[in-house]
């Protein structure tokens, strides 16, 4: 297993390099311009100067090499310096700078990570917690009223887009009932009970929207996987031996059914980091998803490049984790 993991990790390096090049090339080929959003009153000569000051007058390959150096050498060194207090060289390294804010991209990401982890991460956890019991009961009582309703709700949850459910919840709970705020206050510091309640209140709507969506997806997997196992011979054997029904279901069937579900969940973890772009935008949660969409709209290429590349790293990494987990959970699978 160890050599397998090591081999996969080594393979990931060329894969990621190719991915970074493809992203860079795609962004460069896209007919976008960082001065496109500026008022037309800014004359063309000035726009040309702005582009030059962003380094856009350099050839494509030079800019790609700069980015590689900034991202793979300068930024890690910077993080190391901050963590350890050591000093490498004179400390003046070119960092990856966002074009719109002219500030280091990594600082922007660090600033936004907590909100995304809180809101989107929590929604993912809730989604899983809701999905598993519903999936189990739906499978155990297949075609019962509960199963029918569960299937209907998860189909609706899966097919209705979050930009609809989000706005619907705002109209009901913010505009009409006025229970929860429609705008996420990112300056709120949790210091006492009342600010904690305020934080909970502002998280309710975005978390609900995302939980519904996540739960709908995972429920389907749990149900299908449970159904597969319920009809297996070992279940009949267990029942014939007189094992209690509860133990049959929760110990024998559920444990075996969760093997594919765990991999699905692990593969979904990178989507937490990429944020729920639309939901964050609707509720104005300053997470990574919102950062990405603003960067795309403003043609802030270094920011888009760095964010998408980090997502690519996470996807590659969690694919590996899912494979390894599968091997650990299911003794029948061996990689070596």
């Amino acid at each position, binding site marked *: 297993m160890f050599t397998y993991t090591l081999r996969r990790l080594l393979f990931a390096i060329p894969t990621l390099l190719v991915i970074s090049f493809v992203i860079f090339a795609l962004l460069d080929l896209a007919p976008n*311009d960082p001065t496109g959003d500026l008022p037309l009153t800014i004359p063309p000569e000035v726009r040309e100067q702005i582009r030059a000051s962003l380094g856009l007058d350099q050839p494509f390959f030079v800019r790609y090499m700069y980015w590689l150096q900034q991202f793979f050498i300068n930024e890690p060194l910077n993080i190391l310096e901050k963590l350890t207090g050591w000093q490498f060289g004179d400390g003046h390294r070119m960092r990856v700078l966002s074009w719109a804010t002219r500030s280091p991209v990594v600082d*922007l990401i660090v600033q936004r990570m907590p909100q995304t982890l809180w809101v989107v991460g929590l929604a993912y956890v809730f989604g899983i917690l809701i999905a598993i019991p519903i999936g189990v009961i739906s499978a155990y009582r297949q075609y019962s009223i509960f199963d029918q309703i569960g299937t209907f709700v998860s189909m609706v949850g899966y097919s209705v887009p979050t930009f609809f459910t989000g706005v619907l919840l705002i109209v009901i709970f913010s505009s009409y009932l006025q229970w929860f705020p429609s705008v996420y206050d990112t300056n709120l510091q949790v210091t006492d009970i009342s600010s904690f309640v305020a934080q909970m209140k502002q998280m309710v709507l975005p978390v609900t929207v995302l939980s519904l969506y996540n739960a709908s997806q995972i429920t389907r997997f749990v149900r299908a996987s449970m159904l597969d196992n319920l009809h297996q011979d070992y279940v009949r054997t267990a029942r014939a031996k007189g094992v209690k029904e509860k133990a049959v279901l929760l110990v024998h069937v559920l444990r075996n059914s969760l093997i594919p579900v765990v991999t699905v969940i692990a593969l979904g973890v990178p989507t937490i980091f990429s944020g729920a772009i639309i939901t964050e935008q609707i509720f104005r949660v300053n997470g990574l998803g919102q950062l990405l969409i603003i960067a795309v709209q403003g043609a802030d290429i270094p920011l888009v490049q760095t964010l998408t590349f980090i997502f690519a790293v996470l996807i590659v990494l969690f694919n590996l984790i899912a494979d390894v987990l599968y091997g650990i959970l299911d003794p029948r699978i061996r990689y070596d």
Partner: protein
Amino acid sequence: MKKLRLLLVGTAAALAFAGSAAHAQRGTDGDLKILFWQAVSTMNPYLSGGTKEVYASSMVIEPLARYDEKGALVPMLVTEIPTVENGGVAKDLLSMTWKLKPDLKWSDGTAFTADDAIFTWQYCKAPDGGCAQSAYFEGVKSVEAPDPHTVKITFAEPKPYPYSAFVGAQSPIIQKKQFEKCVGAAAPGCTSANFGPIGTGPFMVKEFKPNDVITFTANKNYRDPAKPAFASVTLKGGGDAASAARAVLETGEYDYGWNMQVEPEVLATMLKAGKGTLETAFGTQVERINLNHFNPDPKLGDKRATKEGGPHPALSDPAVRRALTLAIDRDVIVETGYGAAGRPTCNIVPAPANVASTKNDSWCLKQDIAGANKLLDDAGWKKGSDGIRAKNGIKLSFLYQTSTNSVRQATQELVKDMWSQIGVATELRNISASVYFGGDPASPDTFQKFYADIEMLTNNFDGTDPEKYLAGWLCDKIPTPASGWQGENEVRYCNPDYDKKVAELSKTADPAKRETLSKELNDMLTEEGALIPLVHRGSISSHSLTLEGVKMNGWDSELWNVADWSRKK
């Protein structure tokens, strides 16, 4: 005139006094919550140039003088506006002198001096800095400080309209001490200065979260001890216009919402909640249809839409251009797409009132389908079996492009229908705004390249003087491959008489004569059908009914008088 001015100053002073009497103390009204649905990226307008950044920074850093809500210049950091009469502008129009108010302080307590103004000019003209507002300093030969309270600007050539450098929200003064090490290529590296500039304005930056939220606190050293009434400001960004409107008008979570570009009927429903109101201000923005004077036929290859490609086969006929103008019903377009934020117009210079012409309103503002049809019949454009007019094998069938935006697509549909009534066919196309306005010379889809017959966009000019704007239709401003497809004359209009008049305007200093010349130039463009002005667009913002003192401004930052805002008691 003098009496009137005295009266106005008197009223202003009385109003200011009355205003401060109502809330005689600074910081008594709590937190002001402002919502911009496009988040602010930086607080340094010299590095960004975007409207949202200019507006947000206007609460902190100030120019020497601003435009008020009527478009008149008001002194901010100076004692008076220099003119030729008061000796502030030299008779030869080669220099001007600003007198700073005494005892001005930066928010960090240090003295504000003329050196800071000189530094601001040097900061913006530094090579490799990519200063977004360098056009404001165009023609400035030097900025000097004869004494610490005097700023003298010398121009390279006589400037009949000298109010540009250090005037308006786009060219505020930054502190020399803070930005000294941030000149030129070093500018982007100074993140903390760019995110939290020290200013002379009513508020100072407390915390800046890029692309998200800014918190401001009242500036302890602000020149008026009774202002601002609010102790702090929270400026939240992001989302979309409709939900921003909801947060101000329906849920009341925010006090002020910028740029409510929402369908008029949606806004009307939200207003029924009774929590807020809308304010509009009209600057110089005009949504217009550009008619390509050159041939954009793809068969021409490299010569597409250039002089070498020849004139447009159909649109070079003045009768066709006039008929297209006549067929448009501007009232319908305003009603469906703009509501209170638009007015029908036939002028490319729609404001300020003293330069807005009314000459063409009589024939152009009213839709005249019969007249347009007759014009085309007389010019020999005959309807074919498909209902489309043609002459010598050339059909009146046009490609009509614009940026992707729901209001623009609705307008396209309406115009297409209006033109179909005079036998003109149109094919509609929309292009993502960042490409269309992106100006990338390699892209075939920019509005400057104009690889279409007809296109639609909005443009405007900053400030109140249209000279530079009108100079955009000079023959040599036509975008060409040689100029990297840059140039303001996208319609490719070229008229030697027009060029002569623009040259005359640039030499005229007398205000009355300038107004007449500007109007004549504006009228020429409409009459000759260089383009079709459609809608004079206003900016529309919303604010809570509990907020007092908002004076919407179409000439400067909307937040220009935020120092005077207060909470209704």
